[in-house]
């Protein structure tokens, strides 16, 4: 059985008196450890699909199974537990908590799991993403790229099964975006963490081993690649 099974998923929103069909029946299976990009024009349903996979929303129809757990009919508390334990999020605009330092932002996600030595673990994760010495800086004192690295550390520190990244490079310059992607590739390869991105960015698509294209709420294309389209930098694994 696939790590993530999405079957016949539809999502409808009501905007005033109008019903908006964000997803019109999506069927996708994703295996554990995949590095997948979901592409498509604005309004194609990428973020909606990511929200459904991330238990931030529930489908109007269809089922989603994550690691053998059916998500569609769960209570809000149960969905919160799944997010807490199994899913890491990386957002386009970093979304760090501004009153916490870099280390505390990472430590916060660990504290929710009552992990021991969460401060030490947070410091280690910040070192892994190249933020040695910046642990005590608040988000306002970090560049966009550094903030996104903190967000990656926050998402990965708890060793989730799945990382969902919504346009993770959209607010970064191409060099910083590339280094952030390299970091995620490294995490994917080293830890076997499953990554799913939503993106418009051709560079992100190039890094993906699988590219699912959505259009008008449906899967238009699903392309698997044997290797990444972007050559890894020297010294990378």
């Amino acid at each position, binding site marked *: 059985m696939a790590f993530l099974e999405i079957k016949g998923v539809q999502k409808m929103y009501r905007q005033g008196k109008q019903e908006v069909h964000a997803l019109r029946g999506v069927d996708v299976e994703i295996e554990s450890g995949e590095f997948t990009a979901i592409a498509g024009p604005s309004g194609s349903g990428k973020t909606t699909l990511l929200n459904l996979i991330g238990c*931030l929303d529930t489908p109007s129809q269809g089922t989603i199974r994550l690691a053998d757990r059916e998500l569609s009919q769960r209570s809000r508390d149960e969905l*919160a537990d799944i997010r807490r*334990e199994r899913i890491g999020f990386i957002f386009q605009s970093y979304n760090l*908590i501004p*009153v916490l330092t870099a280390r505390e932002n990472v430590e916060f*996600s660990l504290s929710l799991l009552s992990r021991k030595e969460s401060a030490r673990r947070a410091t280690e994760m910040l070192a892994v993403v190249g933020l040695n010495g910046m642990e005590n800086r608040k988000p306002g004192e970090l560049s966009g790229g550094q903030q996104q690295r903190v967000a990656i550390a926050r998402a990965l520190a708890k060793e989730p099964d799945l990382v969902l990244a919504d346009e993770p490079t959209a607010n970064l310059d191409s060099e910083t975006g590339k280094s952030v992607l390299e970091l995620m590739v490294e995490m994917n390869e080293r830890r076997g963490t499953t990554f799913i991105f939503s993106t418009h960015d051709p560079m992100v698509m190039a890094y993906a081993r699988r590219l699912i294209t959505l259009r008008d709420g449906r899967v238009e294309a699903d392309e698997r690649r044997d290797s990444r389209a972007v050559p890894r930098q020297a010294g990378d694994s």
Partner: protein
Amino acid sequence: MRFLVKLATRNLWRNRRRTLLTVSGLALGIMWLILVDSLLGGLTGKGIQNIVDFETGEVQVHASGYFSDRESLPLDRALSPDQVLPTVTSVDGVTSAAPRLIFGARLAVGWEEFPVIAVAVDPGRDPQALRVMQHLEGRSPSLGAYEAVIGSSLSELLDLTVGDVITLTTRTRLEAMQALDLTIVGLARTPNPNVNANHVYMPLDVADAALAMEQGATEFVVRLEPGLREADGAERIRQAFRQAGVDAEVLTWRESAAEFVALSQTSAASDMLLVGAILVIAIVGVTNTVLLGALERTKEIGIMKAMGLKEREIVRLFLLEATGIGLIATSLGAALAAAVNLYLVEVGVDVSAILGEIDFGFPIGTTIIGSWNGAVFIWAAAAGVVACWGAAYLPARRAARLDPATTIRR
């Protein structure tokens, strides 16, 4: 939980000006609550002291049936001091007792007459029971002499002074008209404005003869040992009278000054309503702060929910912030109240220039003083924090129910 406390603490200082304004409002409300309680306690305490020390003693003894008819100051319900005093003073816990003959009279000066309360006292015993004679300008009247002490306010009103002669007109026990010419030998300037305003004191033996009382007193004021509750003292005296076969009614000062007790309770209730209104305004400020905080941080709430925080944990976070506001405000309010109250208790506020002698049911003289009530500090602090929780709960719940998928995209 530790992390939520840390986050709540940091959030409190995110918008310092707003937090400080909210804290200040609530702190002032708490301070006002404590000070109003202090002043009420002071007014009541001093009022009680002045009633007990200058009018009633802790316990009063009358002939049966006197109390229900006390407004008319009846002379036909009297007891003999020889019958009462030996019994009362033999009771364990009684320190002193003094007979008084109280009657209504009109004080005539020239063509003018003023209604007064005439109090005939035993100059030997009365100072042991009550303190009027310790607050004299001049001296107390002597037994057998046609002398009087009048209240200082009354003397000022009628432009009388020591050495002047006044005429009291009244009715005797047998309802005959009687006029007494008395020389003023002292002015009573006491902390009890009732005494100063309308009391005239004269020797008991002179009044007894003039009113045909045949050695009868209408009231016996009794003082008890410190620490002995007046109700317990009164009960002991009742038992002593039963054993001695004396038909008398024994009242505590609370019973004989029931109007004052009722007034102080009504006044306390209305003042606390006022304080309640002030606190409500302060609590609206807390609600406003939490609500604005929630509105400003909708995206952050979405992020925290994405990280796996449950709705009840988000509510807890906002309640922790409200607790912080409550703790800071109550600490500040209590500290300010303690500082102001120290002055009120030790020095008091002299209001004579504004109000003269305060005479709105609280016989407290010219100075308003505070009182210490440790319980109200604890009660106010607890009420402040609990009120903050109440004020924060609904906006916190509203924030916790925000849809993370929507808020994150804002």
